[in-house]
């Protein structure tokens, strides 16, 4: 076994003899400090493990926010040939289509700051969150089925938002290929009353202000300017997506047994693309993607309602327009140049964001001249970013970049070293209003439990995977 070595300012290679059985090398996009952080836990081993899977093309990749996950590392990207490759539910993760939505406002920090605490309280009372909380939408089976097929489009039809919202959502608000018949009864049961809930853990809703614009033309195209207030929503497919993943891990475990495949980690179970099990999973996964997009659509709708109530004005007059909505846990069929020829591949992004350049067919029309917006949530107390996709990402990373700061400290260590109430006080001193369902749990999400998000996005920029358009500073945080 030989170790990883540096191949550029922002890239490290994990050679195939790092672990016998790797079909392709691994590449980690990182500077020295982030690479060293990735080497401290089992993340590099996980990059190597992904390279064992059948039909992997190019390299097994990791973004700079890489950390130890289960199966794939968090920050892992891998593409599999459509005829010889596989799809792996563990390569998407349990929170299928966990993602980010950014809502713009026509308000400035000065207009929001004086009543910020009350605004956050209004949002808190309007947005269901935390463990064991029921959602406000009591969906019937038939409504849920439509949501699973049509995603945000169905929600807009039900009155949760406007037509323009879906044009500014990844895949036009509907993930294609969804088939509710491929979803278990149990997933329906878990999904029934969780639609329109924020959840707990690292999910949040944040009121932010654009602190700095780096690229004028792109910022203008995205409708961003310095001093403008924005709202970021980070949530996923809740219990519904988790059940889909759990169900298909067991189904694919049987596939792997039947085929007699040896895997370095059972969480990497998978099925050959084109097989019934793979098709079924992709159709169920698409349902979970639509559930997640619909979930964020409902959360955004109540955010607008909260602003309307608070400012006593219509959301349109307050300029509450969506900038974009994207998923960072997903697998999808895409065309990419591999070894000089165009190939159709199943790209798995687990804790990684699509980063498509100007002119790419999947970039919404409004942004086709500048490229796809990439939304990067930071941690409480530091910044979030809006980036833009690049041509280099298409060549180097199957059109992918980072998804966030990435954890560096375990939850139990964070709880031991940081006290929730003190953290809340510290953030308040920085001018950040924090409303948390459980203040004790806040410690697990403390800024020091995460890598420096600015370093992560700088490395992405250095490696050419995305470019910085704007930096957002938190003003108010709502946590589960």
């Amino acid at each position, binding site marked *: 076994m030989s170790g990883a070595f540096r191949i550029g300012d922002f890239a490290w290679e994990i050679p195939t003899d790092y672990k016998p059985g790797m079909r392709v090398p691994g590449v980690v996009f990182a500077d020295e400090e982030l690479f060293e952080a990735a080497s401290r*836990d089992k*993340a590099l081993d996980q990059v190597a493990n992904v390279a064992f899977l059948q039909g992997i093309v190019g390299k097994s990749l990791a973004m700079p926010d890489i*950390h*130890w*996950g*289960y*199966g794939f590392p*968090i920050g892992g990207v891998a593409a599999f040939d459509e005829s010889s490759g596989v799809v792996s539910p*563990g390569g998407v*993760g*349990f*929170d299928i289509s966990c993602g980010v939505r950014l809502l713009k406002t026509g308000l400035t920090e000065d207009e929001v700051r004086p009543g910020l605490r009350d605004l956050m309280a209004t949002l808190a009372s309007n947005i269901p969150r*935390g*463990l*064991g*909380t*029921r959602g406000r939408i009591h969906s019937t089976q038939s409504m849920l089925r439509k949501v699973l097929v049509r995603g945000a489009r169905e929600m807009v039809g039900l009155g949760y938002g406007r037509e323009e919202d879906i044009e500014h959502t990844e895949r036009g608000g509907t993930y294609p290929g969804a088939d509710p018949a491929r979803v278990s009864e*149990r997933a329906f*049961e*878990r999904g*029934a009353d*969780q639609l329109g809930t924020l*959840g*707990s*853990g690292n999910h949040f809703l944040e009121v932010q202000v654009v602190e700095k614009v780096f690229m004028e033309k792109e910022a203008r195209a995205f409708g961003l300017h310095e001093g403008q207030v924005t709202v970021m929503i980070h949530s996923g497919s809740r*219990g519904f997506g*988790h*059940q889909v*993943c*759990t169900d298909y*891990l*067991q189904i694919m*475990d*049987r596939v792997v*047994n039947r085929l007699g495949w040896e895997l370095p*980690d*059972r*969480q990497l*179970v998978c099925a050959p693309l084109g097989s019934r099990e793979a098709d079924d999973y992709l159709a169920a996964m698409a349902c979970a993607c639509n559930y997640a997009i619909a979930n964020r659509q409902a959360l955004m709708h109540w955010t607008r309602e909260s602003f309307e109530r608070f400012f006593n004005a219509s959301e349109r007059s307050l300029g509450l327009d969506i900038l974009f909505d994207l998923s960072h846990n997903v697998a999808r069929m895409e065309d990419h140049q591999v070894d000089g020829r165009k190939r159709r591949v199943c790209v798995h992004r687990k804790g990684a964001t699509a980063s498509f350049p100007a002119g790419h067919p999947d970039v919404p029309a409004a942004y086709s001249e500048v490229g796809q917006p990439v939304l990067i949530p930071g941690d409480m107390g530091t910044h979030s970013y809006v980036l833009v996709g690049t041509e280099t990402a298409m060549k180097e990373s199957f059109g992918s970049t980072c998804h966030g700061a990435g*954890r*560096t*400290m*375990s*939850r*139990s*260590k964070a709880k031991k070293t940081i006290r929730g109430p003190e953290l809340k006080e510290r953030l308040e001193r920085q001018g950040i209003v924090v409303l948390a369902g*459980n203040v*004790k*749990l806040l410690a*697990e999400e403390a800024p020091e439990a995460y890598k420096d998000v600015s370093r992560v996005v700088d490395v992405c920029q250095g490696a050419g995977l995305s470019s910085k358009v704007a930096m957002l500073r938190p003003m108010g945080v709502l946590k*589960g």
Partner: protein
Amino acid sequence: MRFNTIEHTADIGIEVEAESLEELFAGAARAMFSIMVDLDGVSAVLSRDVSLDASDLVDLMFEWLNELIFLVSANRLVLCDFEVGSVSSERLVATVRGEEIDPARHSLELEIKAATFHEMVVEERGEGWYARVIFDV
């Protein structure tokens, strides 16, 4: 039965040791719920029968813990008592007890969303049994 938690950068895990396989499965469930909630505040006022089939012990542990997570997520239950009647490598029969989640009364600590296959171990060690499970939180 003894258990301790395992440090994981993003998530959390447990290691459990027990004298019998039945005690091991009951212990893993108890360990998982003790991460989620302060068990002292949970009463055994209602029960559910659980019967599972799997391909091997690891698959069975995966299915068992995810079955209990389903009861939390879909039926809003917190569980405190796990009576595992029998476990073989392919089958488990148990009765679990607890009550409906009441956020006002129950001190909910951490939402465990799934048990993963990642590095999962269920094996005989010395005179007893050992299990390791990493959760998605």
